């Protein structure tokens, strides 16, 4: 059975990816699953300099979901290279580096550094970050700023370039058109949904930063809608994600046109679940008389 899939120039052995922020830098998952058997792993979002992230509480449980306010804590590029890179060389799967910055310059800096690492197969740009030069407004919410950012990053990235968008992206159609024009290779859809939690006992908001990102099964129908809309606005390949817990969820994203899928929050609860989804997709294809993954992708319009 051929489970291969493509994201622009990047070929994956199967369409199941571990999402950024839910599989660390890979090594943390080793006790639970064989990384060589997933399509790709996406590293925790990295910036040039280390970043300490938000004060606790950082995690809050909701009905069938999780809200997080991690604040992009990460060890920074140089410690990543020291601690994790040589270990990642021993892993036989695709590695996607998720990157972010607080300014355009920081974004370009980290993208360029990652592009030079042989072990990294693709760069995924998380654009849902606060822009300190624009008073903390997210890069994603200003079409013009985002356009310029993506163009500048494309000029320094030779590897596969993925852009990770979410529900806050402004002017979706226009944004997708310039992504095509700038030569973006694929889109990751979706990041978490901005959400609020209130503590009625203590009569305050749960998170110090007020708004936190909702993920997990609670967002799956919203994520499907976003992937569906994006699919109809662009031909760029899509990594679909948002609440995927099991094979059926993954199939839904593939059916509406995602070329690959990512498992995020589910890893926190069951870190081996990606390796149930891979054979799950295979069995489905067999049961439906299909012999390639491509027969499935985009079957539902």
């Amino acid at each position, binding site marked *: 059975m051929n489970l291969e899939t493509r994201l622009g120039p990047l070929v994956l052995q199967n369409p199941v990816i571990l999402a950024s*922020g*839910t599989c660390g830098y890979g090594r943390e998952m080793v006790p*639970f699953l064989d990384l060589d058997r997933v399509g790709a792993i996406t590293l925790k979002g990295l910036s040039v300099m280390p970043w300490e992230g938000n004060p*606790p509480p*950082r*995690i809050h*449980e909701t009905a069938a*979901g999780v809200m997080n306010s991690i604040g992009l804590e990460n060890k920074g590029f140089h410690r990543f290279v020291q601690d994790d890179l040589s270990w990642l060389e021993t892993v036989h799967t695709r590695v996607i580096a998720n990157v972010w910055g607080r300014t355009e310059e920081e974004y370009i800096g980290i993208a360029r550094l990652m592009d030079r690492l042989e072990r990294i197969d693709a760069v995924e740009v998380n654009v849902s970050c606060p822009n300190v030069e624009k008073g903390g407004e997210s890069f994603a919410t200003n079409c013009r700023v985002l356009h310029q950012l993506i163009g500048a990053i494309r000029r320094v990235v030779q590897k596969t370039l993925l852009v990770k968008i979410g529900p806050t992206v402004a002017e979706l159609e226009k944004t997708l058109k310039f992504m095509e024009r700038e030569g973006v290779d694929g889109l990751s859809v979706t990041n978490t949904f901005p959400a609020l939690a209130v503590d009625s006992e203590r009569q305050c908001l749960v998170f110090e930063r007020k708004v936190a990102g909702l993920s997990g099964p609670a967002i799956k129908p919203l994520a499907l809608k976003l992937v569906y809309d994006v699919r109809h606005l662009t031909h760029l390949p899509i990594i679909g994600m948002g609440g995927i817990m099991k094979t059926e969820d993954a199939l839904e994203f593939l059916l509406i046109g995602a070329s690959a899928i990512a498992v995020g929050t589910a890893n926190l*609860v069951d870190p081996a679940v990606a390796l149930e989804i891979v054979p799950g997709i295979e069995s489905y294809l067999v049961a439906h008389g299909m012999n390639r993954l491509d027969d499935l992708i985009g079957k539902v319009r």
Partner: protein
Amino acid sequence: MKQTPVTAIKTRGGSFVELELAGKEIARVSRPGQFVMIGAGQSYDPFLKRPLGILSVQEDRFSLLFQIVGQGTKLLSQLQPGNTVSVLGPLGNGFSLHPSEAVLIAGGRGIVPLVFLASHFQQAGIPFTFFWGVKNELELVLASYLASFSPSCVLSCEEAVSGYGCGTVLTSFSSWEKTHPLRSGSRVYACGPQGMFRVMQKIPFFSGVPVEVSLEARMGCGFGVCLGCAVKKKEGSGYVHVCKDGPVFLLPEVEL
């Protein structure tokens, strides 16, 4: 995900439950101070697994002891032998195991990892004194877990109860410590509510001896990927992560 069978479940008073699970591997490799993540619900409610300390291990089984405080622990309390749960573990770093002498200080349900530690010390012939304090009489049902260490135990209750020292675990420790100089190479091990650790950070005695504390934090994953379990470092900036760097830390390392 692999399921672990419940082999026994016993309630202890109104709000505590001891849960015994089958698990050769966890029983074989667990060290005192480590914990497991355990799935409480069959569907998505509650969604995340819950961290629980390891109380004891037998040949092919291990036990947990928890207090019912919310939805997750309530569901766990309703399990029956033969039911199955999903478990990840053992997780975390655990206590150091080779002091010349040990002082164990537990508040309330903080007794759990220290019972495991005390049985290790007992087997290894390491002298120890176990202080355990509770807020009210109801929690005293857990005193049975200290029965096999009883000559080395000092119990206290904040409510006046006959046969128990009155006051907090730290008051009873402080009066003991005046007449019991510790030998060199001694260590203090503590587990309890944050308030207890905060008081300890202010008591001069505890800056003169290595003190290992086992912390609690809200956890997303329990194995170091989500970075949800952050606790501020005392020195410098940034955070430690309770599930991966801990749950055991040196008392001066963390901002409580």
